[in-house]
């Protein structure tokens, strides 16, 4: 890992960070926390209040962020349709089409849910589907690009959602997963109903999920737990096994995957004290620890997880760290 730059955002604790897919060019990134949402356009050095135009009387706790999948492409082409950034807050999902300068709020069904995770359909431009995982209210689904939301929790026996992961082949397989307080649930009908998986309850909560980019072929999904265990399923979540050789301490707050070649996956697992990188599908790990990494709560890797790629890390004391793997 190379030099770490860090900046204070003015937030108490950062719960989510997200960076533009063209972060290397535009330096656009967001940090969300209990005191609201901050935006930076210089790669995470200077931060300002992203909700300033809303004129809020009290800070709006925000805990989830997502860029629409073809944001980079549309930004280059200056297309308006899909340059959307979503922010999940208490009681609503906000979206911006102008790099976070202005926001539109869509209220969620009462009582106000606390949005903890957001996932946008890979085919968002066509299907307009967005999913919001919440604490205590399960999963909300919007089929009109975030305008209206409804709960779809058939079979979701645990409504405390920490993580959402959507299949890259969603248009074909309608599959998504949620990491919850008691394990992992799977939907194979576009989030309209959920089924338990065999993920062991005693190892939950599941804080982070990541689906293989080759999911259609390999069916691989990873789950990181609060108890610092990394689990893997190679059959679309039907059976799970703990990854051997994994020893990094602390809850696994974020997981990111990228294909290195046809056979292997590169995996970045972020705990509250270390960055753990595997370039062989989890068989071996390079663990990077330093005092500066203490208290990392969330991460974003806009350029993937190859060596040298930049990652953004949010911390529990309101800092955003930018470093290269």
């Amino acid at each position, binding site marked *: 890992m190379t030099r770490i730059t860090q900046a204070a955002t003015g937030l108490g604790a950062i719960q989510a960070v997200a960076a533009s897919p063209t972060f290397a060019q535009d330096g656009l990134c967001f940090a969300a926390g209990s005191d609201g949402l901050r935006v930076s356009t210089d790669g995470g050095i200077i931060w300002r209040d992203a909700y300033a135009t809303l004129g809020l009387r009290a800070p709006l706790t925000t805990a989830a962020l997502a860029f629409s999948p073809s944001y980079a492409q549309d930004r280059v082409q200056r297309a308006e349709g899909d340059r959307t950034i979503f922010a999940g807050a208490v009681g609503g999902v906000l979206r911006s089409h102008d790099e976070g300068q202005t926001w539109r709020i869509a209220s969620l069904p009462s009582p106000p849910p606390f949005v903890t995770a957001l996932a946008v359909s890979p085919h968002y431009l066509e299907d307009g589907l967005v999913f919001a995982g919440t604490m205590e209210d399960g999963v909300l689904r919007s089929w009109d690009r975030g305008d209206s939301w409804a709960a779809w929790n058939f079979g979701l026996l*645990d409504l405390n959602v920490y993580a959402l992961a959507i299949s890259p082949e969603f248009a074909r397989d309608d599959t998504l997963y949620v990491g*919850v307080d008691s394990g992992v649930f799977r939907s194979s009908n576009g989030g309209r109903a959920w089924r338990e998986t065999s993920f062991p309850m005693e190892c939950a909560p599941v804080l982070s999920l990541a689906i293989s980019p080759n999911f259609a072929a390999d069916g691989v999904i990873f789950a990181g737990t609060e108890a610092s265990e990394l689990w893997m399923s190679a059959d679309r979540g039907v059976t799970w096994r703990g990854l051997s050789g994994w020893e990094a301490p602390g809850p696994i707050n974020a997981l990111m995957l990228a294909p290195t070649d046809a056979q292997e996956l590169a995996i970045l697992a972020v705990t509250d004290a270390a960055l753990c990188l595997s370039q062989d599908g989890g068989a071996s790990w390079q663990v990077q620890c330093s005092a500066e990494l203490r208290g990392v709560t969330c991460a974003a890797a806009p350029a993937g997880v190859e060596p040298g790629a930049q990652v953004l890390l949010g911390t529990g004391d309101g800092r955003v760290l930018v470093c290269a793997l």
Partner: protein
Amino acid sequence: MSNNLRLPPVFQPTTYRAFMAGADRIVATIRPTLGPVARTVAIQRPLDQRGPELLDNGGVIAKRIIQLPDYRADVGAMFVRDMLWRLQEQEGDGTATAAVLFQATFNEGVRLVAAGLNARRLQGFLEEGIEVILNELRRQTVPVNDAHHLAQVAFTVCQDRELSDLLGEIFDIVGGYGRLEIREGSSRGLEREYVEGIYWERGLLSRQMVADPQRLRSELEDAAIVLSDLNIQEPQQILPVLVTAFQAGLKRLLIVADEIADSALSLLLANSKPDHMQILAVKTPGFGREQQADFLVDAAVLCGGRPFLRATGDTFKAIRSEDFGRARRVWADLRSFGLIGGMGDPRQLRRHLAALRAAHSETDDLALRGKLHERIGRLMGGSATLRVGGVTVRDIEARKELAERTAAAVRGAMQEGVVPGGGVALLACRPALQRCIDATHDPEARAAYRILLRAVAEPLRTIVANAGYDPSDALAEVRMAGPDYGFDVLTGRVTAMGAAGITDPANVVKAATYAGLTSAALALTIDVMVHRTEQPAHATPPSPARRKRL
């Protein structure tokens, strides 16, 4: 001789002949209903002047046949009827398959017993062969989960594309144990509705608790819940609940009790004010203590908190704030109440559901299975309603009955999987039976396996014949094509059934096979028939209803 036994007993060889005549009569009535190109059976209505009832369900037809004029044949007919009725109660389908299997096995068995084989030994070997068939059916079973395949399973049962597609969608959402109500609708077609959360058919104890007079409904957000089956006769009995809730800062409260007297209700109404504390009270769901106890256990797991039970002498005197359950939303009207987002421990809920599912799959008691199914369906957190409309009342009734039958089959397929349809799964048991024949020299054993070898082809032959094709030709073509191939009577072609999505619910095929074949094996051991003139036994369903695990 008592009045009951006025007719003389029947001995061999008349026993077999008469029994077969009666059984053949009822099987012949049901045989045309097997397969996707089934025909209907018209049954006269003796009690009114309306036209005959048109039926295509073997189980329902069997129930309608009360008595044959020949008392000797009647015993055989009622034996088969009882078997079919029981099967219909258990699985909701498969009666025509069971009927033709019974006939093929029994008639061939009678011929061989008449030729000198021992009926009791034959029965024993038949039962061994039945186990071979069931194992082969288990081997062919594959799970089915997605909406498309569920719709295909439904279509093989009901042959109604619109109904099949809707049931496929519904079960894809609510799951195999999910709650589905099928009701008569007011439109001409089919409509479905999904309801989030859980509800019970018990309403508000006072009309004055209705907050929304237009919808006659009240709703609470982030509500505390007191679960009990107590009889509250005095205001003092409920006062500790209000005091504890007030001290805990609870603003919205649902009280579930078996009974709350007017004076205690008045206390609740006097303290229910929007700016102070909103209070709703409903009656404990369930008929009788056992059902109420089940509700309290389930609701406590779902919402957390502690249920207060009359049986253990509980009162509200020592209620603490942690005894309250919680839910994100509660609603109640004058007929029912519901919960959305119960805030109990999800791990405990999942363990509780796993225990209920295990009990459901292990019990043979149909009534208990029904209750467990209902509890599991509720706890899954949502329900669906299918409204069946039509042009006439008769249309609606018939389609609703078809929808119920199909829903039961789809549910069974979700829980136990599917096998290739069109009689192919049974036909595929023949190599295993042939191996049994080759492995023994015992004449009764070889005869038993040969009987079964022929019998397992009978459903396919009947399906083909009912569709107007030649069964022998079709069977020859299917044998040439190889395993998993069958005759698709809708296209008139030999097809790979599994790949074409022509499947049958495994539970239905196994249950029909077991019922038809074991009944035939048992019937072969009947030597004397004694006829009783009491009629009610024929008119009532077999009991106790039990389901054998296959």
